[in-house]
């Protein structure tokens, strides 16, 4: 359940902050909340991690990071958390998650997104991860992005009743 006023702020800013020298004033006008409340709520959301940062979101390909490989790993369950933490700390890994296996279709339980200027660079970085894994990993694959089909960022649907379960 999302706090109704936080939800208003999400709806007002999820497509982007108003491009103005006082963007939070514009958000206050759009939501009918006071400027002080808008700022206090954003600070509180920042503090609890509900807002990770308020920042520019790059188009990785246009920034020169042409290759984006989703590396996926079948890691020993007893060691996945230890290794996941080490992989997540690598500076070329943007996201690192543990997810369920779906045998026989999907044997991999660790995902690490690797960005690079070329496929070769991504392969070098994946080799670094493979070195960390050692024998704890039974297999891995790298899924390269071919095309971005949609990238709106996470959006809440306006008007959706949050108490409605379906």
């Amino acid at each position, binding site marked *: 359940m999302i706090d109704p006023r936080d939800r208003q702020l999400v709806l007002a800013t999820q497509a982007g902050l108003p491009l103005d020298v*006082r*963007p939070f004033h514009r958000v206050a006008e759009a939501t009918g909340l006071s400027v002080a409340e808008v*700022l206090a709520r954003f600070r509180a959301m920042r503090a609890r991690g509900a*807002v990770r940062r308020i*920042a*520019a979101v790059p188009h*990785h390909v246009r920034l020169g990071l042409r290759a984006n490989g989703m590396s996926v790993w079948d890691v020993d369950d007893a060691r996945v958390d230890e290794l996941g933490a080490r992989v997540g700390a690598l500076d070329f890994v943007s996201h690192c998650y*543990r997810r369920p296996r779906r045998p026989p279709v999907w044997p991999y339980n660790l995902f690490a997104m690797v960005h690079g200027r070329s496929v070769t660079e991504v392969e070098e970085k994946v080799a670094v991860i493979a070195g960390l894994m050692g024998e704890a990993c039974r297999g891995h694959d790298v*899924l390269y992005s071919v095309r971005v089909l949609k990238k709106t960022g996470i*959006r809440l649907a306006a008007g959706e009743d949050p108490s409605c379960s379906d």
Partner: protein
Amino acid sequence: MPDRDRELLAALLRGIEPEERPFRALAERFGTSEEAIVARIRRWLAEGLLTRFGPLFDIEKLGGAVTLCAMAVPPERFEAVAAAVGRHPEVAHNYERAHHLNMWFVVAAESRARIDAVIRAIERETGLAVLDLPKEREYFLEFVPEPP
């Protein structure tokens, strides 16, 4: 890209604070006006260098839910399936990937029940099975890409 633009872009990728005039400190640092910084963000958005400027929300910490889904889509139906998936506002990103499972998308909603409903709708609309791979744990460290 000139060094000054590069430095400004790097600062904007790291982010601003929720303040009444969040660009004031940056304007002072770069010896320019707040208006010029906002105009530069507007230009980078128009040029497609940036996809968005604003808050990056963690939907789970907000109280919502999110999952990663994959589908094996027959190549001849790929465009139609991409359109069907993309029509759902709960689908945040969708990527074509070079793999048997060739379509990967993120579904985010206010509840897990809503995600289940969206997945069922996509399966119904496309006749294809959706692999649902919710995050069990995140190994998180702030990642900010370096500008070119």
